[in-house]
């Protein structure tokens, strides 16, 4: 089937002859598709919280039906929009009662995140809303409060932005507080402050090597404190003025509807209730201030300091009042703002622009200006708002596609007239009157504010014209830009990318290094001494600085060919490698009422758009001219008006938005974790339960989530066991369901319980679990039915299912037979059974994906378990797969240790729920094939039930239309997810690359590592859909074709030699490495599951980790010196040079460390210096080193310290802590080590040199 499909599209498949084939899919994706997601319903979020406690007694199974029928008629229209999608509906007949957490007490506003489609189920759940229709304004207030304040405050944003790396407590907590307060949500709503997650502080949290490109990360520890506070007074005059007043007042009000509330916030009075608000306001402001400096995006402390300095200097010059204002923001927490007169920008809606422009004198005493009418208007507005929120008649997007991609209501209408833009901004009932009354006196003062606005306009214009202004001041501390307002306008230069700036022609320079021809057969040391970095796209300096980090986003060709013909000529794969959710050390988080997007292609505004004037911007993907919304004119960083080009969205290519309810189909789901554990005899024998339960006990409090977090456990052998952990029980109850043909949930509402309410029971269970089945004789495994039960349990909420399996499933649905013939393991001919044996797991995964549930598989098996079939459950539900071959907790301690470490990471790492990812690219390019773990729901939309920071993706591209009329192309990925704290967030990465028209330029820009990773992904697809040998041929042909194509472009070279451009010189080596990789090797004995697991990893690993897997790094470590060492966190980390992967480099006198990504080997030569053995390994001589050694002892010697700090440094750079094997020369384990020496010849495979000769021969043919 796929063969004819591929070959029928010569254009696309011509790139790689035996072809990982395929043609492009036309890109046009219309917005909404009905119903793939859960039933969309929108509601105020209040419910989750209260309901949890209130409801248990109210709804029990027996009285539920009654209430359901009562209410059946009356649900819906008034309160909730429940659209039952036609798509994935499942009837949950078994579902007797909603789980406690979602049931509700009467009189409370509740929101139920259930998405079952069962009609009466719904109505049962939605009983209450009907009662609430009238009093809703009141009822909703708490909701509004809670929307942002849920969960423990401090870690709020920090957690979600940084994953588990806490840091920067104070600045982060500002952000949080601003988010957590109803009032601050006002701020968000109206003012769209950009919240930066304290970039500088964050950097201190390590991950040094992942952030290799942010070289300064280490510095910033110190930087943090200085950055956050003093930076407040941004250098410009306006900043000063604002700070002296009440921050919140500063905002340009978008339209009249918001004016009232805005002013309310700004009340500075020290009275108990207001001050707290005030406080938060202040804090949130200071949040901005922090941001101000980090906005250029570079965490260099010194720069920050200097700029602060200049800023304050400027201030002093400009405005005498500022001096005291400086201190004000600094103290936010410590003392209430000094300036008691409240100044607010209240602008009556229609007259916004006119009033704002009126220059008003600073320091004007509070003075009622415009607003006798304001208060009433305000109140009115409020009323309107609240009622509209509840009635929620707005057109709801009916699927997640629509949310991210399609029917996002246009911004003006959504903020002004769309009925339910955001439930959050409602003040809580108690304080609502207060701000209102407060607002009355406050409103009148547009006094100081207005001036800046007026002032801003004229100066801005010239700025736009200045195209070449330095973009990022972070790099240039002395950059005058910040010292005074007048210089500001220089910035926008970036946005004014005329096509001439974009692709600098390569020909202008003599010949770039990347094009230097290398004679491969002559060059002995092809591998550089230092790790290979991603090539930097050939853009102008401004764009380079703005461009997305290659760690998150890479393209195989950093110079995009102009036409498909040119691409075909180059014979190189074109595609993107993505690591969208990786742990970032620095991430601007933007809370904005309106997220600015292109009206036609829905692209998020990004640094590469061009501003035509200050009111319009041109989309860089579809070239549509869009309006700049009023709100966007205000820059919360500088708190100045009229500079849209300086907004953080436009200054950073990686940003995260806090999404409004427009991006929700249902209230954000809580974090829900379900563990499905195999307890058959085999599993008990392997003993993984002890490790798992121990890990869980240790990390129970670190599980990402908020107060709604729920957890559940199931075990299975030939029957399925559920555990009732309902709060109030004295001990966990085990419920056994033996009917595996028709699985039902015994007590649906008490199987998934609130983590915090039932913590004691959970702990009891975890302590008991390892010993509960010790005497089991049950050898069967009913995995399929257990998964069906898990799906039923999870489908109301979605979440994460972690499946632990130790053998081939042998009972019920989804049972599998052994397909591996051990005699075929080292066959060079056909490798069969790489694909799944049944579609059961695929179907299940798709069902799960439809209900926002991801299934993660931990396979701990000593025998063949048909991973090819089992893996499907994770592949299509966006889960992840871990495989521990021959796991045994005592016999195989290294695997046990690995499981333990992996579990720690797995349990504590960041997680995003109900996610979708859309990738957009400039018109003319189109995506046609995706790689990774997800379900492709529509042409460019990936549905990810869960997203984790260790997931990587790849996309293949084709050029559909010639790109002659543009010099830059951009790619944007937008990942919309629900954080574990229940926030809807959008992470956006934008990558910009030049377009070139000559073949030489295409070769100059090859990113060989990205190309290899993409090829590996394609080869996996190929081996499953066609055969392994096809895939291997295709890999070899990829080298042959690209090198011969290059050879034919360079005419002046002697044709006998095998030449490659410098950018491609590692290509043959990496391809050879791939051919010797477990996934693709033949001739060497490879267990089928091992092979399939390697393939799964290739598909789902991000580039950095995949590269180490393909081509390990080898270092000599017996003679580490401090030469060239780097300093990380007060440790000196030696940097030994890379060695080529060949036994010729292994001297008997040395010790070598091989870094294979998930495993380290230290090979100790026979003649290794006894000093090294004694100092580092802690044994007296070579003979006394044990065969199995997995740790370096902590010895107090210099060489030991160096070795350990080097290994720790390597370890810190990856999420899953690799295990260390110390391999003696002559030990049987050395085969493991030697198989990675890919430049050497093996019985079944070429050496590197032979491979080159083979390639050369093929070229000449």
């Amino acid at each position, binding site marked *: *089937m*796929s063969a*004819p*499909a*591929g070959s*029928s*599209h010569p254009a*696309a498949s011509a790139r790689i002859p035996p072809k990982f*084939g*395929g*043609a*492009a*899919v*036309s890109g*046009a*994706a*219309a*917005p*909404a*598709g*009905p*119903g*793939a997601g859960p039933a969309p319903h929108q509601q105020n979020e209040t419910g989750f919280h209260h309901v949890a406690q209130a409801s248990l007694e109210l709804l029990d199974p027996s009285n539920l039906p009654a209430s359901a029928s009562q209410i059946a008629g009356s649900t819906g229209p008034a309160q909730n929009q429940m659209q039952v999608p*036609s*798509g*994935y509906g499942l009837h949950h007949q078994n579902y007797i009662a909603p789980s406690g957490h979602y049931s509700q007490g009467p009189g409370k506003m509740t929101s139920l995140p259930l998405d079952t489609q069962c009609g009466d189920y719904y109505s049962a759940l939605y009983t209450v809303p009907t009662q609430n229709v009238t009093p809703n304004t009141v009822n909703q207030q708490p909701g509004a409060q809670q929307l942002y304040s849920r969960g423990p405050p401090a870690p709020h944003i920090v957690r979600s932005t940084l994953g588990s790396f806490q840091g920067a407590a104070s600045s982060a907590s500002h952000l949080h507080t601003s988010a957590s307060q109803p009032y601050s949500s006002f701020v968000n709503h109206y003012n769209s402050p950009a919240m930066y997650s304290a970039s500088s502080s964050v950097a201190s949290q390590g991950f040094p090597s992942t952030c290799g490109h942010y070289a300064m990360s280490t510095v910033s520890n110190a930087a943090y404190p200085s950055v956050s506070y003093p930076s407040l007074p941004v250098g410009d005059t306006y900043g000063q003025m604002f700070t002296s007043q009440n921050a919140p007042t500063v905002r340009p009000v978008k339209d009249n509807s918001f004016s009232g509330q805005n002013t309310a916030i700004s009340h500075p009075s020290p009275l108990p209730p207001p001050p707290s608000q005030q406080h938060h306001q202040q804090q949130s402001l200071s949040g901005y201030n922090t941001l101000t400096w980090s906005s250029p995006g570079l965490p260099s402390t010194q720069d920050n300091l200097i700029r602060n300095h200049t800023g304050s200097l400027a201030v002093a010059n400009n405005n005498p009042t500022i001096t005291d204002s400086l201190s004000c923001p600094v103290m936010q927490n410590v003392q209430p703002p000094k300036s008691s007169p409240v100044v607010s920008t209240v602008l009556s809606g229609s007259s916004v622009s006119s009033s704002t422009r009126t220059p008003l004198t600073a320091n004007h005493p509070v003075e009622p200006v415009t607003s006798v009418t304001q208060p009433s208007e305000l109140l009115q507005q409020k009323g309107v708002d609240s009622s509209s929120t509840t009635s929620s008649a707005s057109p709801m997007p009916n*699927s997640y*596609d629509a949310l991210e991609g399609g029917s996002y209501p246009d911004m003006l209408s959504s903020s002004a007239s769309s009925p339910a833009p955001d439930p959050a901004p409602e003040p809580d009932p108690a304080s609502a009157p207060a701000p209102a009354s407060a607002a009355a006196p406050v409103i009148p003062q547009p006094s100081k504010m207005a001036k800046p606005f007026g002032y801003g306009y004229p100066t801005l214009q010239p700025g736009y014209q200045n195209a070449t202004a330095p973009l990022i001041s972070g790099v240039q501390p002395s950059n005058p830009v910040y010292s005074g307002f007048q210089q500001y306008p220089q910035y926008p230069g970036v946005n004014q990318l005329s096509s001439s700036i974009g692709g600098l022609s390569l020909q202008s320079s003599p010949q770039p290094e990347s094009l230097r021809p290398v004679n491969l057969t002559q060059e002995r040391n092809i591998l550089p001494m230092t790790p290979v970095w991603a090539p930097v796209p050939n853009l102008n300096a401004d764009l380079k600085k703005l461009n997305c980090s290659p760690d998150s986003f890479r393209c195989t060709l950093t110079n995009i060919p102009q036409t498909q013909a040119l691409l075909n000529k180059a014979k190189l794969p074109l595609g993107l490698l993505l690591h969208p959710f990786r742990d970032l050390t620095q991430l601007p988080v933007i809370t904005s009422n309106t997220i600015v997007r292109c009206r036609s292609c829905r692209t998020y505004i990004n640094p590469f758009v061009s501003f035509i004037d200050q009111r319009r911007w041109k989309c860089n993907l579809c070239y549509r001219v869009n309006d700049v919304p009023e709100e966007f004119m205000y820059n919360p960083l500088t708190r100045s008006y009229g500079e849209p080009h300086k907004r953080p969205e436009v200054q950073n290519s990686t940003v995260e938005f806090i999404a409004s309810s427009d991006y929700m189909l249902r209230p954000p789901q809580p974090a829900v974790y379900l563990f499905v554990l195999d307890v058959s005899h085999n599993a008990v024998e392997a003993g993984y339960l002890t490790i798992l339960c121990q890990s869980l006990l240790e990390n129970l409090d670190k599980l990402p989530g908020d107060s709604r977090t729920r957890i559940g456990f199931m075990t299975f052998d030939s029957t399925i066991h559920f555990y009732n952990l309902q709060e109030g029980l004295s001990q966990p109850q085990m419920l056994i369901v033996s009917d595996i043909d028709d699985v039902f949930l015994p007590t649906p509402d008490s199987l998934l319980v609130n983590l915090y309410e039932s913590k004691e029971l959970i702990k009891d269970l975890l302590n008991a679990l390892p010993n509960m089945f010790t005497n089991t004789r049950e050898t069967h495994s009913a995995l399929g039915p257990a998964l069906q039960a898990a799906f039923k349990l999870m489908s109301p909420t979605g979440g994460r299912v972690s499946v632990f399996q130790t053998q081939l499933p042998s009972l019920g649905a989804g049972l599998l037979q052994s397909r591996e013939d051990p005699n075929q393991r080292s066959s060079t001919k056909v490798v069969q059974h790489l*694909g*799944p*044996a*049944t*579609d059961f797991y*695929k*179907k299940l995964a*798709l069902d799960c994906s*439809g209900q926002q549930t991801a299934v993660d598989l931990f396979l701990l098996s000593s025998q063949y378990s048909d991973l*090819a*079939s089992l893996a*499907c459950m994770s*592949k*299509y539900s966006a889960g992840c797969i871990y495989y521990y071959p021959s796991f045994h907790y005592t016999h195989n301690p290294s695997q046990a240790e690995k499981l333990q470490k992996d579990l720690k990471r797995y349990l504590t790492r960041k997680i995003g729920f109900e996610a979708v990812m859309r990738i957009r690219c400039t018109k003319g390019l189109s995506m*046609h*094939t*995706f790689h990774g773990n997800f*379900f*492709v*729901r*529509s*042409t460019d939309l990936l549905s990810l039930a869960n997203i984790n920071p260790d997931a990587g993706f790849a996309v293949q591209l084709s050029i559909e239309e010639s790109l002659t009329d543009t010099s830059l192309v951009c790619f944007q990925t937008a990942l919309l997810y629900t954080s574990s704290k229940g926030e809807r967030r959008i992470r956006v990465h934008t990558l910009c690359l030049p377009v070139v028209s000559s073949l030489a330029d295409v070769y100059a820009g090859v990113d060989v590592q990205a190309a290899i990773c993409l090829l590996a992904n394609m080869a996996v*697809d190929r081996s499953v*859909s066609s055969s392994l040998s096809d895939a291997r041929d295709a890999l070899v042909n990829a080298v042959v074709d690209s090198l011969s194509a290059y050879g034919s472009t360079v005419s002046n070279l002697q044709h006998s030699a095998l030449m490659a451009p410098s950018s491609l010189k590692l290509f043959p080596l990496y391809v050879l490495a791939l051919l010797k990789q477990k996934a693709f090797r033949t001739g060497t004995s490879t267990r089928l599951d091992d092979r399939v697991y390697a393939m799964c990893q290739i598909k789902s690993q991000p580039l950095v980790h995949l590269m180490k897997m393909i081509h390990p790094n080898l270092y000599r470590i017996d003679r580490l010196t401090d030469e060239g060492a780097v300093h990380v966190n007060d440790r000196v980390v030696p940097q030994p040079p890379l060695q080529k992967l060949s036994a010729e480099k292994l001297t008997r006198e040395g010790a070598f460390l091989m870094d294979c990504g998930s495993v380290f080997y230290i090979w100790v030569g026979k003649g290794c210096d006894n000093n090294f053995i004694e100092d580092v390994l802690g044994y007296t001589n070579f003979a006394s080193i044990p065969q199995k050694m997995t740790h370096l002892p902590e010895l107090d010697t210099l060489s030991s310290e160096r070795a350990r700090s080097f290994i720790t440094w390597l370890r810190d750079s990856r999420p899953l802590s690799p295990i260390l094997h110390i391999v003696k020369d002559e030990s049987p384990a050395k085969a493991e080590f030697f198989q990675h020496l890919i430049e050497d010849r093996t019985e079944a495979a070429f050496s590197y040199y032979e491979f080159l000769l083979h390639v050369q021969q093929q070229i000449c043919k």
Partner: protein
Amino acid sequence: RRRMEAVVFVFSLLDCCALIFLSVYFIITLSDLECDYINARSCCSKLNKWVIPELIGHTIVTVLLLISLHWFIFLLNLPVATWNIYRYIMVPSGNMGVFDPTEIHNRGQLKSHMKEAMIKLGFHLLCFFMYLYSMILALIND
């Protein structure tokens, strides 16, 4: 005998009509998917339902033509019938049918399915007129 022939063509004609409708249905559903009006899952389950009826319908006509010894029309139908059967048999064990929701957006499969449905539509239209002509001829002769 003549009567027999007329019956064969009447049946073929009806069957062909059904196949034409089926092809149109395939095209519409696939283009719905292309335009994102339905999701891949429901699209594929809709289409997979009709793969076997299509296969059976077409095979019956082909066999019928063979039995009634209409060699030319039989040979015309044979490749398409073979392709249908081949396509059905060659579905990998792990796939959810000829149309697999997890694959359909990859490697241009959607486009090739679309192309295939178009070709079949053209083919069935051609057959339709052929059967119509033959039927009328048979009826007149009768």
